[in-house]
């Protein structure tokens, strides 16, 4: 509730293991038992005890005679601290230490290595122990690796190094990958007598880079990656020296090597108590705030009572606290968010803006729902199969660099391939499939576009055309027409459409989409038995032609007269052509013309079809006389028969 979540509590022997999920910004102080203990003491008020570090130094032994250190890059390695212990006895660790390491998921090795690991768990400071006698020239050099340098780590893994990898080297060769893993060469073994303890600090992004490059993540690299407090180095080394002396004997050499050119000092932050209250939305008494800060170890340097300002010193272990807002978080969480009562904001009530794009999208969805379509959501990816269907656009496909599977190799460049997959999923238990999707497609170089596509199984071209017309009516998009598809030579063979049963959807001279039957070849490849009709519309283009305006047209009080007209025409004549002829007569008495039958059959002359229309006559101001209607009807018949191939059928 106040800091971290405990994921699990497990009983081990007489003890308990708490699995705590530490937030990554608290890695520096809380990837350690001391940090968690400190946190507990802040929240519970219990005392925080620091582990013992009291060891005996041997005045006769100088650390300098065991090791010297040179740091080549001070940014990469802000601090290198080392201690030396001589005359140790290598052996297994005592049971308590082994058990504790095992509980934390570490494998016990020998007393020295175990102590280094144990202290890391305690303090968060990764340590490394070298066999001091195996370091050539007794000199440690912190430098970047040279090209072609190699390294065999403690666990016998071989790595090729390069200049991105920071190493710990002796005079001749790398002996460890800095901050990540030790090398085989200066390994502690049964004969090891003299130990050099490294308690260093490395640059987080350099460790991260190397760790990714080598594909090597360790407890040490994890801690350094998140950034660690260089001021912790001496304490951890002392604690290790204390434990070594206790568990492996030996003499601790006097002094330590410390290369620490730019000391990290505690930050001073200004905390404006008015701002604290304003951010949290709660007036927290000054005394409470100060008590929280003190418990956290933040020293209050100065107070300005009048302006309610505090100046505080933040311990360097709290690497996450760098600005005032970080302090507010500390106050908020320790105080308890549950004690902050909800308050509705008082800010100005500006009415929200209507988002027209979303309005049209939602309207479109409603229109298709009305028309009996189901909305689907598909992945934005598709694989080779999808790409094949849209072969003509292959050059515009965007590839995913790290796809989860070959099925998701590309970003989709069209919605239809995935919609066809949906058919595949459903066809075995229903033929009743009418689906649509409104979603983004992606094109090279960096284009993304909202498209609307859908399909119907076992329906005709005219059904899908009707559905699309229904959409345009609902969106108030006027001037829509259908143009015959004239494929360019390069996409004619690649098209997924039936070459004769498809059309371009146009508004004015703009092509906004496509509709028709899916080519039988594609249907066959997919293994379907039913035909599929579909549409594919550039929704962004369409949105430019939509309109919410609707205007009522008065209904005439006078009755309408309906006359039918049937015309026999060659079968390739389009309904549009006939309609154009009829409408070309420009009679204001004709208020509507409807095709109600289109017939081709054996009774008709070969190569002909019969088209029958209702012609609706109506006047605004009078009941029409039969003669008036006849006169106009005759004009229409005449116009239709201008073409010698057309024949109006009289009954």
């Amino acid at each position: 509730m106040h800091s971290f979540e405990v994921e699990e509590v497990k009983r081990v022997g007489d003890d308990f293991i708490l699995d705590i999920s530490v937030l990554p910004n608290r890695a520096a102080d809380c990837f350690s038992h001391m940090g968690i203990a400190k946190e507990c003491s802040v929240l519970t008020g219990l005392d925080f005890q620091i582990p013992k570090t009291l060891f005996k130094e041997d005045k006769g032994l100088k650390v300098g005679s065991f090791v010297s250190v040179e740091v080549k890059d001070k940014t990469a390695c802000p601090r290198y601290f080392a201690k030396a212990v001589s005359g140790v006895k290598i052996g297994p660790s005592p049971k308590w230490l082994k058990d504790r390491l095992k509980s934390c998921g570490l494998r016990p090795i020998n007393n020295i290595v175990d102590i280094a690991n144990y202290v890391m768990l305690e303090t968060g400071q990764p340590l490394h122990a070298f066999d001091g006698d195996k370091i050539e020239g007794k000199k440690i050099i912190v430098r970047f690796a040279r090209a072609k340098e190699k390294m065999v780590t403690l666990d016998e893994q071989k790595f090729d190094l390069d200049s991105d990898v920071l190493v710990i080297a002796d005079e001749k060769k790398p002996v460890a990958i800095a901050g990540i893993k030790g090398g085989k060469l200066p390994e502690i073994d049964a004969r090891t007598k003299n130990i050099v303890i490294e308690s260093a600090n490395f640059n987080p992004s350099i460790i991260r880079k190397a760790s990714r490059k080598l594909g090597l993540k360790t407890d040490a690299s994890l801690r350094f990656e998140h950034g660690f407090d260089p001021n912790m180095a001496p304490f951890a080394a002392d604690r290790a020296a204390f434990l070594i002396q206790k568990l492996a004997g030996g003499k601790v050499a006097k002094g330590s090597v410390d290369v620490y050119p730019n000391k990290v000092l505690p930050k001073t932050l200004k905390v404006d108590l008015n701002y604290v209250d304003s951010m949290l939305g709660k007036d927290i008494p000054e005394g409470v705030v100060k008590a929280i800060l003190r418990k956290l170890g933040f020293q209050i340097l100065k107070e300005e009572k009048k302006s309610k300002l505090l100046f505080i010193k933040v311990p360097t272990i709290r690497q996450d606290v760098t600005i005032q807002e970080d302090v507010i978080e500390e106050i908020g969480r320790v105080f308890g968010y549950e004690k902050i009562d909800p308050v509705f904001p008082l800010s100005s009530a500006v009415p929200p803006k209507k988002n027209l794009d979303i309005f049209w999208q939602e309207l479109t969805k409603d229109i298709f729902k009305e028309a009996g379509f189901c909305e689907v959501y598909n992945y934005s990816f598709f694989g080779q199969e999808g790409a094949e269907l849209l072969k003509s656009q292959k050059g515009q496909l965007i590839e995913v660099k790290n796809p989860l599977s070959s099925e998701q190799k590309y970003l989709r460049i069209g919605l239809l391939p995935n919609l066809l997959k949906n058919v595949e999923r459903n066809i075995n238990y229903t033929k009743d499939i009418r689906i649509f999707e409104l979603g983004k497609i992606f094109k090279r170089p960096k284009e993304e576009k909202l498209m609307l596509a859908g399909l119907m199984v076992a329906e005709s071209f005219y059904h899908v055309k009707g559905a699309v017309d229904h959409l345009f009516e609902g969106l108030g998009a006027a001037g829509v027409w259908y143009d015959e598809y004239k494929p360019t030579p390069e996409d004619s063979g690649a098209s997924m459409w039936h070459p004769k049963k498809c059309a371009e959807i146009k508004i004015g001279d703009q092509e906004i989409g496509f509709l028709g039957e899916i080519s039988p070849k594609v249907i066959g490849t997919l293994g379907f038995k039913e035909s599929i009709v579909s549409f594919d519309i550039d929704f962004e283009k369409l949105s430019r032609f939509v309109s919410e305006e609707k205007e009522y047209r008065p209904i005439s009080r006078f009755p309408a007269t309906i006359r039918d007209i049937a015309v026999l025409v060659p079968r390739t004549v389009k309904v549009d052509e006939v309609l154009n002829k009829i409408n070309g007569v420009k009679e204001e008495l004709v208020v509507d013309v409807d095709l109600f039958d289109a017939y081709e059959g054996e009774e008709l002359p070969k190569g002909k079809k019969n088209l029958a229309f209702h012609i609706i006559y109506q006047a605004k101001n009078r009941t029409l006389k039969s003669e008036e209607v006849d006169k106009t009807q005759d004009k229409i018949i005449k116009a239709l028969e201008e073409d010698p191939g057309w024949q109006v059928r009289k009954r």
Partner: protein
Amino acid sequence: MMKIDLKLLKKEAEKEINSACDLQSLNEISNKYSGKKGKLTLVLKSLASLPKAKRAKVGAEANDIKRFLNSLLDLKARELKERLEKEAEEKEWIDISAPGNKPLAGHLHPLTQARRKVNEIFQSMGFSVVEGPEMENEWYNFDALNIPKDHPARDLWDTFYLENGLLLRTHTSPNQVRYMEKNQPPLRIIVPGVVYRHEATDASHESNFYQLEGLMVDKTVSVANFKAIIGEFYQRFFGKDVKVRLIPSYFPFVEPGFQVDMICLNCGGKGCPSCSYSGWLEMMGAGMVHPKVLKAAGLVPKGWQGFAFGMGLDRLMMMKYKVNDIRLSYSGDLRFLKQF
């Protein structure tokens, strides 16, 4: 003139009428007595030949009988008609338990329905709905949100990278910066949209899913305000009083940062499998907008403060409709979709 016993005639007629079994025989009876050559008609026609005194008496009696018979006929006719109608209706009996013929019904995806509801609730609280691109660059997706390159925080978002140098947005948060670049506070927005994570899918994880970003920035927007807005949202979305709690969390683009938990709707906080026996469900990440984010959007952070949140719409939808597998949403399976 024939001698007719009117009383007898009345009796006979009455008997016949009462025993008529259908309209046709009733009609015949009617003709038999009051038709052109009907018995009663004949009596009435013969009146003229009677002596005056007798004429009046017989006439009155005959007319009475006629009236009586007519009303009797009417009554019987009505009765027979009703019976006929009833019989006809009887024949038209249908099985009302047989299923109806449904009109062709379409269905909106449950995520669309959930999103509409969310949008509506936030709009009523003054939030505008905006959208942003799905292909993002590293700046908006990471750097501008205080997630620098080579920072372990980037590991929190597993990312799809594209060959054109862009990436698929891992959250809707880039729109905080995109929006604030063009709009000066005070502002309140929500940004719904699909986001992408490079992670293996299972019942509760998808590589494509929907998120809803929220952002409110003004002079004094506080944690308390956030609690009020988000509490109101959940209450209205789920239609019941729901308890919400904030737990400290870490997202680089907010400070303080928290995780919002909601009491488990399934068990009411007692603990059950759907909340892993904790009584709480993790609903979203949120916090107070980090000054670096305001700065990245070109604002001077001083004087502006606000909250931001990001919630998973799939999760919300799944809880509302008790859907147990996130992958169903993207399966295109009509057996799933037609339930909504």
